[in-house]
C-alpha cells in the first residue's frame, strides 16, 4: 500500500478546533440559525399522550422540562463530551454541583471515597464536612503519594477523586498509575480537570473514567457565568463487580431499568440526569450555557496565550528578588516536571503558586497594591487574577488542614491572564515594591 493510499483511509472525523466551534449543533434542525439559539423555556410541548409517556419512560430522546435537559444546554454538553473524547456529558449550575452530582450518583450512605488532599477549598469542605452528613466518608491522600491511594482503599470505597494539578500547590497526581490502582480494585477514577481543559489534557486518554469541570473558569474564560459539567469516558464496566447496584440492578424510579445494561457507555450520565437532575435539580440556565459556548469557541486560541504568558511569568518570578519560591510544572526542578510533560503536552497551564519574601504581611501588601491583576476568588479568567489562599479561598481550613493541603502563609495564587505580558510584569513590580516596604519598616 502506498503512502498516498494509507493517507486516504485515515478517519476524517473533525478535530479539536473544529469541534470547539461546531460540535453538538446542527443548524438545519434550528431554522438555519448559524449561532446556537438560546432556548429560554422551562418546558416543551408533547405531541400527544403517547409522546409524553415515551419521553418519561426514556423510550425516546427529547426534552421534558429544563431542569432535566434543555436544547441549548444540550449543545454545550455534546460539545464538551466531544472535546474530552467522552461518550456523554451533563452540565450543571456550577463546578461544585457537578462534583456533588457525581458523588451522589456514584455513592450511597455507608460508602467511602479516596480523595486527593490538594483541592479547591470548597471541594475539601464538601468531602470533609458535608458528605459525611449523607453517610459518605472520605480518606484524604497527598496527590504525590500514589501508593497512599492504594492503601486508603476500603471494601466500601466507590471511587478515587482528585484534581490532576492540585489547587493551589500545583502538585500533580500520577493519573495513569492511580487509574491502574482504581481499576485493579474495580472502582472508577474521577478527575477534576478544570485547570487543564481538554486542550491541555484529556484525562480519558490516561485512564480516568469520569471528568468534572468548573466551566466557569478557562472553558468559558470570560468570567461572566457559573457552570459545571460531568463527562463520562464510557470505558468503565459497572457490571464487573457488585459494588454499584444502583447502576446495575433494576431501578424502581424508572420501571425497573438497569442503567448499565440499557445504556452501557453512557449509563452514568443517564443515571445522573434521570435521577440526580430530577431529584436535586442543579440545572444550568440556557443563557449561561450559551455564554460558556461563546468561550469554548476560542478555547485553544486562549489556552495557547494563557500558557505562553504563564511560562514568561514563571521566568520573571524565578529571577525576582522578592520571590522566595515558584511552583509551576514547567519549572525544571518542580517534582512533577517530567510527569507534566507527559500529561500536559500542549502546555503546563496558567496557574502559578509562588512564595513572597516577607510572609503573610508581604503577601497582603502585594495583593492590596497590584492594579491590573484582579484580587478575587476565581481562576481561569482571561484577566490575570491573584489571591492569598490562606486568607481567602482556603481560609475556612484550620492550621493542620492548611499544612496537609500544602498551603503556606507566604503563598500567592496567580492565574495568568492573556493581557500583554509586559503590562502584567509592570503591575507585579508595583505590588512587589509595596510588599518590600513593611519589611524595611520592621527591620528598622
Amino acid at each position, binding site marked *: 500500500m502506498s503512502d498516498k493510499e*494509507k493517507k486516504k483511509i485515515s478517519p476524517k472525523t473533525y478535530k479539536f478546533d473544529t469541534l470547539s466551534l461546531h460540535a453538538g449543533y446542527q443548524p438545519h434542525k434550528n431554522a438555519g440559525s448559524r449561532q446556537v439559539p438560546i432556548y429560554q423555556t422551562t418546558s416543551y410541548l408533547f405531541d400527544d399522550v403517547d409522546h409524553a409517556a415515551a419521553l418519561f419512560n426514556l423510550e425516546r430522546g427529547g426534552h421534558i422540562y429544563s431542569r432535566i435537559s434543555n436544547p441549548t444546554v444540550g449543545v454545550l454538553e455534546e460539545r464538551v*463530551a466531544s472535546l474530552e473524547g467522552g461518550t456523554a456529558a451533563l452540565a450543571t449550575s456550577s463546578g461544585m454541583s457537578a462534583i456533588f452530582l457525581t458523588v451522589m450518583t456514584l455513592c450511597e450512605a455507608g460508602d467511602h471515597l479516596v480523595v486527593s488532599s490538594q483541592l479547591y477549598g470548597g471541594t475539601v469542605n464538601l468531602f470533609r464536612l458535608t458528605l459525611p452528613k449523607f453517610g459518605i466518608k472520605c480518606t484524604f491522600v497527598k496527590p504525590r503519594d500514589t501508593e497512599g491511594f492504594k492503601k486508603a482503599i476500603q471494601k466500601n470505597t466507590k471511587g478515587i477523586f482528585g484534581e490532576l494539578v492540585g489547587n493551589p500547590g500545583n502538585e500533580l497526581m500520577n493519573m495513569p498509575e492511580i487509574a491502574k490502582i482504581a481499576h485493579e480494585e474495580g472502582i472508577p477514577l474521577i478527575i477534576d480537570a478544570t485547570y487543564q481543559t481538554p486542550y491541555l489534557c484529556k484525562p480519558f486518554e490516561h485512564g480516568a473514567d469520569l471528568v468534572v469541570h468548573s466551566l466557569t473558569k478557562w472553558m468559558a474564560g470570560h468570567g461572566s457565568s457559573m457552570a459545571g459539567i460531568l463527562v463520562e469516558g464510557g470505558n468503565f464496566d459497572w457490571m464487573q463487580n457488585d459494588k454499584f447496584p444502583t447502576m446495575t440492578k433494576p431501578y424502581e424510579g424508572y420501571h425497573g431499568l438497569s442503567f448499565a445494561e440499557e*445504556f452501557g457507555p453512557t449509563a452514568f450520565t443517564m443515571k445522573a440526569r434521570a435521577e440526580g437532575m430530577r431529584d436535586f435539580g442543579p440545572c444550568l440556565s440556557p443563557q449561561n450555557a450559551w455564554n460558556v459556548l461563546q468561550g469554548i469557541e476560542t478555547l485553544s486560541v486562549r489556552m495557547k496565550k494563557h500558557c505562553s504568558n504563564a511560562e514568561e511569568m514563571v521566568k520573571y518570578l524565578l529571577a525576582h528578588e522578592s520571590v522566595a519560591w515558584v511552583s509551576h510544572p514547567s519549572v525544571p526542578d518542580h517534582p512533577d516536571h517530567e510527569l507534566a510533560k507527559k500529561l500536559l503536552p500542549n502546555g503546563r497551564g496558567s496557574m502559578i503558586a509562588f512564595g513572597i519574601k516577607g510572609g503573610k504581611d508581604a503577601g497582603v501588601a502585594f495583593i492590596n497594591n497590584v492594579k491590573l491583576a484582579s484580587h478575587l476568588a476565581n481562576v481561569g479568567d482571561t484577566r490575570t487574577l491573584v489571591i492569598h489562599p490562606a486568607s481567602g479561598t482556603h481560609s475556612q481550613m484550620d492550621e493542620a488542614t492548611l499544612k496537609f493541603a500544602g498551603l503556606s502563609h507566604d503563598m500567592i495564587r496567580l492565574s495568568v491572564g492573556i493581557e500583554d505580558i509586559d503590562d502584567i510584569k509592570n503591575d507585579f513590580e508595583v505590588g512587589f515594591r509595596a510588599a518590600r516596604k513593611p519589611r524595611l519598616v520592621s527591620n528598622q
Partner: protein
Amino acid sequence: MKFKVNNEEVFASTGGRPFDKNKPLIIFVHGSGLTHMTWVLQTRYFAFHGYSVLALDMPGHGLSSGKSLKSIEDMADWISNVIDAVGYKEASLVGHSQGCLVTIECASRYPNKIKTLSLMGGAGAIPMNPELLALAENNDPKAVDLMMDWAHGPAGHFGGHPVPGLYHINTGGMLAKSRTIKDTLGVDFRACDNYKNGFVAAKTIKIPTLSILATDDKMCPVKEGKKLANLIEGSQVDIIDNCGHMMLLEEADRVLKVLKKFITTHYPVVTK
C-alpha cells in the same frame, strides 16, 4: 435478560420491560462489532407498547458469551435458535447493516418463523474495504475510528444526538471497542465480506419487508439498498435525508415513526 443458545449464555435487552411470552416477539439484530445498545431508541418503545423485545448481543459481543460466529449463514441459524430458546414459534426481525444480511438469510431459511422484516442501512452484499478489513483483523483501533467516520453522515459528525448530552461518534466507538476488536469487528467484517447469498435469499422472501435507507449512507448507499428492496416482493422503502448509516441513532425519531407504522400494521398486537 439472559438465556442459553447452543450452551452459550446470550444477553438480550428486553427494552426495560419484563419478557412476556404472551406478547408478539420482535428481535433486533445489531451491526458489525456493535451491541444491543445501538437499539435503545427503538426497543424501549415497542417494549412499552405490547411487544416482547429482544435486542440481542450476538455471540462474543456485548454481554453475550462464546465466540463470534464466522458466517452470516451461521448467524441466521443462530437467530432461529434464539426464537426456539425463548419458547416462540415466530418473530418479527429488525436488522441494521450486517444485521440486515443476517435477517434476510434467516427469513429466507425459515420462512414460516419470520413474520416481518425491517432492514436499516441494508444491502444485498456488504463487501468490505480491504484496508478496513485488515485493520479490524489486526486489532487496530483505527478500524473503529474509520467505521465511526464512515458510518455517520455529515450532520451526524457534528453530533445532535436525540438523547440530550450523548455524543454519537464517541459512544459508537466505545461500543465497538467494548470487546477485543479482532474478535468482534474483525470476524464480523470478514463474515460480511464472504457473504454472497443476499440477492438470492432476497428473491425468496414473501413476507412484509421495510427498508429504511439514508441519503448520506457511505457504507450501504441508497442505490444498493434499493437494489435489494427491488428483489423483495412488495417491499416498502423509506429514505431519510441528511442522515448516514447510523440512522437508528442519527435520526432515531424518524426511524421509530416508520418502524412503528410498519410493525403495528403488519405484525399487530392482538388483544385477547
